[in-house]
């Protein structure tokens, strides 16, 4: 079994590596960038799905954690100027993981007091925290303040972003299938019932929140090293809303749904560029229609393979 898993890992890495070269040579850089943006969108959507979809807690501060990851990793690679190592692919990778850890710590600190709240109140508190984090960056001069931070090594390519998409997907899938995941799901279904079964609700809420923040931080780090420029404006409230839309479109609680949501929300605005100024009118219109047709999101609570299996068996 071990060997089998290693083979899978190597196969996926080799495939991504090959695709990376193939795309860089044969695909228009703009289209490639859109594909990479979709990848970052997927990571964001999958991570938020854990809190909003699986744990049933409504968080509106996801952009804040993305910002923490972006600023932390960019600080390591760009501002601190520690060693040339942090200009290499591997160094940037380390910086991005550090950014994820920083975001997880921020998630823990934010989650501890706020997860005692429920529903709308939690949404407002997380929204507030997201804005506080952003305004902190706005006022820290050493990371550029309102001017933004430029000159970040542009190391995020197809390979790195999609490797993280795979890691996020597998990690979250394994988490959801573990006892932790079951506990998290039970919190969503009925807190009182879960508690009476001996589940420490606030602990599992925080677990979900911290893991979600970690991957949001990773998405932020990848984003920073893709754009090679970040400013506090990149992590406004709208970005959090975007992540929520991804989750809702895909289906709350469905990991594969979040992937579809991430793709749709990242891709549609680019496809709609032909409509110029009306783009931002048509985009929400499509979202509204989608919500009217599929109120539970594209996949609902289910995963895509569950749907296919059912069809095959019936």
């Amino acid at each position, binding site marked *: 079994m071990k060997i089998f898993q290693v083979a899978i890992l190597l196969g996926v890495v*080799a495939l991504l590596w090959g695709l990376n070269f193939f795309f860089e040579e044969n695909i*228009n850089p703009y289209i490639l960038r859109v594909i990479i943006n979709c990848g970052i969108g997927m990571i964001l959507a999958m991570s938020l799905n854990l809190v909003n979809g699986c744990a049933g807690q409504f968080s509106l501060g996801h952009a804040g954690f993305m910002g923490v990851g972006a600023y932390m990793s960019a600080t390591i690679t760009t501002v601190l100027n520690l060693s040339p190592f942090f200009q290499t692919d591997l160094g940037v990778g380390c910086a991005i993981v550090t950014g994820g850890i920083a975001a997880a710590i921020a998630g823990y600190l934010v989650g501890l007091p706020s997860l005692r709240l429920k529903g709308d109140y939690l949404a407002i508190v997380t929204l507030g925290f997201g804005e506080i984090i952003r305004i902190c960056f706005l006022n820290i001069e050493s990371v550029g303040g309102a001017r933004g931070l*430029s000159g970040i090594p542009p190391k995020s390519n197809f390979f790195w972003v999609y490797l993280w998409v795979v890691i996020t997907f597998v990690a979250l899938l394994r988490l959801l299938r573990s006892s932790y995941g079951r506990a998290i799901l039970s919190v969503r279904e009925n807190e009182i019932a879960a508690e009476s079964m001996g589940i420490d609700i606030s602990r599992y809420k925080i677990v979900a929140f911290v893991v979600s923040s970690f991957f949001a931080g990773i998405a932020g780090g990848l984003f920073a090293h893709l754009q090679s420029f970040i400013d506090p404006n990149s992590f406004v409230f709208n970005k959090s809303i975007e992540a929520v839309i991804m989750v809702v479109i895909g289906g709350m609680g469905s990991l594969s749904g979040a992937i579809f949501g991430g793709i749709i929300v990242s891709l549609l605005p680019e496809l709609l560029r032909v409509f110029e100024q009306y783009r931002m009118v048509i985009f929400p219109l499509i979202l509204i229609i989608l919500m009217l047709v599929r109120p539970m999101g594209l996949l609902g609570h289910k995963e895509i393979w569950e749907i296919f299996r059912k069809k095959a068996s019936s």
Partner: protein
Amino acid sequence: MILLKTMTPRAFLAFGILAIFLNFGCVKKEGGSLSSSANVPTGNEIWVGEYGSMTGSESTFGVSTHKGILMALDEVNKAGGINGKKIQLKSYDDQGQAAEAVTIITKLITQDKVSLILGEVASSRSIAAGTVAQQYKIPMVSPSSTNPKVTQVGDYIFRVCFIDPFQGSVMAKFAINNLKLKKAAIFRDIKADYSVGLANFFVDEYKKMGGEIVADVSYSGGDMDFKSQLTSIKGKNPDVLFIPGYYTEVGLVARQARELGLKAVLLGGDGWDSEKLTEIGGDAVVGGYFSNHYSHEDKSPVVQNFVAQFKARYGEVPSGLAAQGYDAAMVAVDAMKRATEMSPKAFREALAQTKNFQGVTGMITINEERNAVKPAVVLKVVGPQKFSYITTINP
């Protein structure tokens, strides 16, 4: 892992072989994928790209600039274009987001194959997108990004506005030559690059011209109470008080200065340019002077002609951003006309050699740092939301 479990190891072997195949299958293209040879205009058209904030919270900036650019290019095309080639404009909206700006400038360069890019008002987005333009070696002309860092991105990035600190020397010249006042105090926002840059240039120029700086104190943006600093300034009895800040603080400073009985003439930069200035400062700011890029009240025929045409086309008085959008397009057109051949590289060379180009916002010369050397106008605050044109100061 159901998905993965259903796959046999053979499938993964196939994956691996496919991956290796892909690796070898792609032959490196000549010149690498980053060459801009594809962006050489062919046929009877030259494609020019524009990106700006047409929607979002800063949409007025983008829309004004767009109107100016559109009017300029229409004029050029009506007059026969560039050596018989018509200019086609491709413009995209970046919603005021740096990430969007980076994506669409990539689109403009690699998909629409534009040979030159006009854009963006906000310095942060100009820096972000400029990095891409520099990477692909496509010249970019910013109409109104004043932060010094914008053109430091690389040798393909230009601007047709002056940089922030230049306004400091303009106001120093104005104080000495026009107002004949030789004792100045500085009150700078220590947290803002913009303010510190303006203050430093003011001090240098003022001293060079024989003025005396009697006080140089600072505040932090966001402060509400400035009385202690103003009291110390009052003790030095200056003729002018230079406050290179933004309108919110300037209004408060002006009020408190007058309350303390400070009589000095107030001077400032384009951070004053807002309707809010007189709303916050009231009568205290009336009589103050500040520098700006352009004034539609300027009596010179170039400006009046532009204003008349703009009014006829859009039914409104052109803002400074529209004038600068117009100038950015015109400077680019002028460079394309002078270029030795039709290629982004030649356009860059020609842009770098721009000298004494008569634009709406003044004579524009591009210096070796790819910044515009051009005059600034000085406006006087005459009443609630009313600024009147006083003079033009040459560099």
